[in-house]
C-alpha cells in the first residue's frame, strides 16, 4: 500500500472522471452537438450577408459556448452525490479542494476543450479570417476553464436541490459576463486591426485568479450542501 501524492490524487480524479465519461459518451456528445447546433442556427436565421456574419461571429460563438457549458454543469457533482462517492471524497485524508480541482479539470476537458477545438470549423460559416479564427481558439482555451471553475461553485451550491439545473445557470451566467466581454472582444480587436493581447492577457488573469480561489470556494460550498 503506497501513499498517494497530491498530484497523484489530482491525476486519479481526472482519470476517473474521463473514464466514466468514456463509458457514458452521450453526456459529452450532447454538449458538443448543442454548441454546433446553436452556432449553426445563426447564419441560417440571420441570412447570408458576410459583413454582418463576420461582425457577430465571435459573440455568437461565445454565447453558445457559455450556454453549452451551463448544460453539463448540473452533472458535475450530482452523480457522485447520488451514489455516495461524494461522502467518501469528503472523508479523503487530502484536501477536498484538490479533488474538486480534479473534477473541474475533467469537466473542462469534456466540455470546454472540445468546444475550443471545433470552433474554427464553425467560424468558417461566419466567413472569419484565419487570424481571427486563431484568436478565437486561443480566447476559448483561456476562457472556458474559467466557465468550468465558476460553474463548479454554482454546481456545488445547488447540489441536491430540485430544479437545480436552471438555478445553476441563473447563479453562474452573470458571473461569466466578464469572460464573455473580453473573449468576444479579443476577436473584435483583431477584426478592427488592433492587437488582441490585452484581451487575452485579461482572460489569462481571470483564469489564474479563478484557479487559485474557486476550488477552495467550491469545496466549502460542497461541505455546506452535504450537511
Amino acid at each position, binding site marked *: *500500500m503506497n501513499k*498517494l501524492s497530491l498530484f497523484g490524487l489530482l491525476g*486519479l480524479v481526472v482519470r476517473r472522471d474521463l473514464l*466514466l465519461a468514456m*463509458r*457514458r459518451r452521450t453526456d459529452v456528445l450532447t454538449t458538443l452537438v448543442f454548441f454546433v447546433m446553436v452556432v449553426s442556427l445563426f447564419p441560417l436565421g440571420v441570412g447570408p450577408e458576410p459583413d454582418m456574419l463576420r461582425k457577430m461571429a465571435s459573440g455568437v460563438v461565445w454565447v453558445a459556448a457559455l450556454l453549452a457549458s451551463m448544460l453539463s454543469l448540473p452533472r458535475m457533482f450530482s452523480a457522485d452525490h447520488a451514489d455516495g462517492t461524494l461522502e467518501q471524497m469528503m472523508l*479523503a485524508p487530502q484536501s477536498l479542494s484538490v479533488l474538486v480541482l480534479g473534477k473541474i479539470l475533467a469537466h473542462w476537458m469534456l466540455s470546454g476543450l472540445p468546444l475550443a477545438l471545433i470552433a474554427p470549423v464553425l467560424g468558417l460559416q461566419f466567413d472569419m479570417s484565419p487570424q481571427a479564427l486563431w484568436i478565437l481558439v486561443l480566447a476559448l482555451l483561456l476562457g472556458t476553464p474559467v466557465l468550468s471553475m465558476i460553474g463548479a461553485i454554482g454546481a456545488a451550491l445547488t447540489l441536491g436541490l430540485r430544479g437545480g439545473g436552471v438555478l445553476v445557470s441563473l447563479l453562474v451566467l452573470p458571473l461569466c459576463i466578464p469572460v464573455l466581454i473580453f473573449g468576444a472582444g479579443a476577436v473584435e480587436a483583431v477584426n478592427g486591426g488592433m492587437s488582441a493581447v490585452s484581451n487575452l492577457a485579461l482572460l489569462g488573469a481571470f483564469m489564474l485568479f479563478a484557479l487559485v480561489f474557486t476550488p477552495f470556494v467550491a469545496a466549502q460550498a460542497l461541505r455546506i450542501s452535504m450537511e
Partner: protein
Amino acid sequence: MGCTAGGAIVYNPTLFCFRRATRFFMQQAPFLEVKDLACERGDHRLFSGLNFALAPGELMQVQGPNGSGKTTLLRSLCGFVQPVQGTVHWNGQDIGEWDDDFHAEMCYLGHLNAIKDELSALENLQMSAGLAGYTVSDRQAVAALRRMGLHRREHLPVRVLSQGQRRRVALARLLIGDAHLWILDEPLTALDVGAVGLMQELIGEHLSKGGMTIFTTHQPLQVAGIETRQLVLS
C-alpha cells in the same frame, strides 16, 4: 493545521508540533470518545446527553427504532453532521481540529455504496483506495474481492451485479485500508447468510488487530469471543 479560537481559524505552530510529537513518542492507543453529544434533524432533537468511549478491540452496536438517529450519530462521528451540543474526540482531540489526519484513520461505509455502475469491481475498488489517499496493486485488489466472494466478477461492470454483490464490492474497501476505526451503517443490508458470516469474521480480525468498530444493524451480528457493547437510542 489550524485550531479554532473565538470563531477564527488561526495557525498555532506550537500546538501543531506538540500534537505531532505526542503522537510520535507516546504511540498512544487510539480511542474514540463522545461527550454529552446532542444532534438535531430539522427542529427535531434526536438524542442528547450521549456519552461513550470506544477503545481498541471494542465492538459497539447502535440500536434503536427507525428515525431514532442512528445514522445521524454515525455521520456526526465522521464530521458530516455538526452536533448542536457536545464533542467527538479522537485520541483526546476534537475531530474538527484533526483536520484530515482523523480521516486517514477511519473508514466509513454508509447506506450508499459509493460505487460506479460503469466501472468494474476492480476499478471501483482501486478508485476508492485512491480517494482514500493510497494506491493498491491489481493483485491486492483482486485478493480483497475474492475474499468477499466475488471470484471471477472482478472485471465485470458493477451494473450487471446484484444488490448483494454490489454491497460486497463496497465492503471490500475495508480489506484494503489500514483504518483503526470502522464506522459501518447497516453493513449487512442485502447480504446473504454466507456474507454475514464473512462480515463477522472480518470484524473479528479487525478487532483482534487492535481496531475498533461501531455499527448499526437490525440483524443479529455476533463476533466470536468478543462482547458486543450496546448503545440504545430511543
